[in-house]
């Protein structure tokens, strides 16, 4: 079963961290990604996203595009990065994400990815 792990962080949170905390997070993140890539459960790479202010949100209404600067949701917590997991169960995916250093500082959401396969009922 495939899952996406979505790292949400508070806008100012990273800036508010001390240099020591940042270094700790960065070095641990590398080890975390490697450990579960090696176990064959983390698939592909992890992606860190640029600040939400650098992006745009696009809507097309009645054939007309409306483009706004910035993120879709004006939430305090924004998507900061993501990676994919392929594990036996949601329990196992949760267990892995518990080890993500980002979960200690912010929050990581684990969401199943829809399968294109299915069973007739």
């Amino acid at each position: 079963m495939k899952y996406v792990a979505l790292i949400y962080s508070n806008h100012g949170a990273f800036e508010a961290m001390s240099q020591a905390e940042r270094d700790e997070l960065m070095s641990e993140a590398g080890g975390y990604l490697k450990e579960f890539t090696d176990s064959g459960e983390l698939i592909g790479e992890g992606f860190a996203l640029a600040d939400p202010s650098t992006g745009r949100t696009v809507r097309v209404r009645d054939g007309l595009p409306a483009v706004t600067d910035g993120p879709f949701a004006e939430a305090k917590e924004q998507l900061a990065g993501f990676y994919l997991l392929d594990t036996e169960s949601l329990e196992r995916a949760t267990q892995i994400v518990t080890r993500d250093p980002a979960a200690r500082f912010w929050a990581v959401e684990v969401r199943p990815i829809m399968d294109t396969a299915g069973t007739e009922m």
Partner: protein
Amino acid sequence: MTTEDGVGVEDLLRQFAPQVLGSLVRRYGHFDLSEDAVQEALLAAALQWPEQGTPEKPRAWLITVAARRLTDELRSDEARRRREERAAAEVPSDEYLEPPEPEHLPTGTDDTLTLFFLCAHPALSPASQLALTLRAVGGLTTAEIARAFLVPEATIAQRISRAKQRIKASRIPFSLPPESERAERLDVVLQVLYLIFNEGYTASSGPDLQRGELTSEAIRLAREVRRLLPNDGEVAGLLALMLLTDARRAARTHPNGSLVPLAEQDRERWTANYIKEGVALVTDALARTPLGPYQLQAAIAAVHDEAARASDTDWVQILALYELLERISPNPMVTLNHAVAVAMVKGPRAGLELLGTLDGDRRLAEHHRLVAVRAHLLEMAGDRAAAHSNYRRAARRTTSLPERRYLDARANRLTRYAP
């Protein structure tokens, strides 16, 4: 590209893969390195044979090429190790080049069975068991396995190398499990094959065709286990179950990928020879071997497959089979299907009552299959409002796109009854 007797090179290679590997491991030990060497020999053959023709003794060719790769690898390994260890201590190592064992086992029969057990060793994770079985016994490449499971090749490579490290570190011997563990270990082998089958079967439409090939690979491997253990009823039962299920493959989806429930499938499109073979297998197993869950599930599939129309289905017999299955192998998914049979024989309320026994398990109570079955039975019972909300809830809970599409469509038919 086919050889003179009409067998494709690829089929030939897959058939020889476990025999060549078995022969190498017997002679040199080192399952992990032997497995890599066999893969290289298979790749070399896949490139050369179609161009230059299949060698006269293809199996011997593969063994020779793989053995050469392996000894090269062992020598360079040994040299590397010596370089590394020279500084520390000069320990003579004869571990890497064991004396060759005498050549034996003309058919490789025992070796193939041993490989099945080794690849499905309980010390390995299920994902690793699947990948290793497909590569070491099935002769598939890492790339083919990765395409089938829709993950990057590196991920499958990791799972295989993990599994091989585990086998090495745990000193799992290359031999059949002791008689006392044989039945339990065979269960795992069959489970691995069934997982491979289901991975392919549920995906047998549209863009997932490559994944769908896992179904035929699982059937091929199940045939192989059956050839090696012709008197085991559960092996026959699993093969029968796969055939009787796969027989419906062409009818189970619309061309656009949406699911067609069993009752609405065009039975003309079912594969008649699979049904015939499956029915014969399960009938024979039931008559002469101890009863087991695969045989019972195959028997249930056979009753469905033998009905010319959905309305001809012998639900009384299916119900009796589910009662037996629930007795010898109780689990919530069996209870779910049992409830459907109860509803067909004794009416939807009786079915709903049996479903109610699963509500105690909070996690299962929200499982989309339970909610979907409840929706169906409520619809049968004429409670359309409750059916509607259960279809919607099941649609939200499933993680399969075609299932969600199907469940939403069922809900939409009942929208005017929504509360």
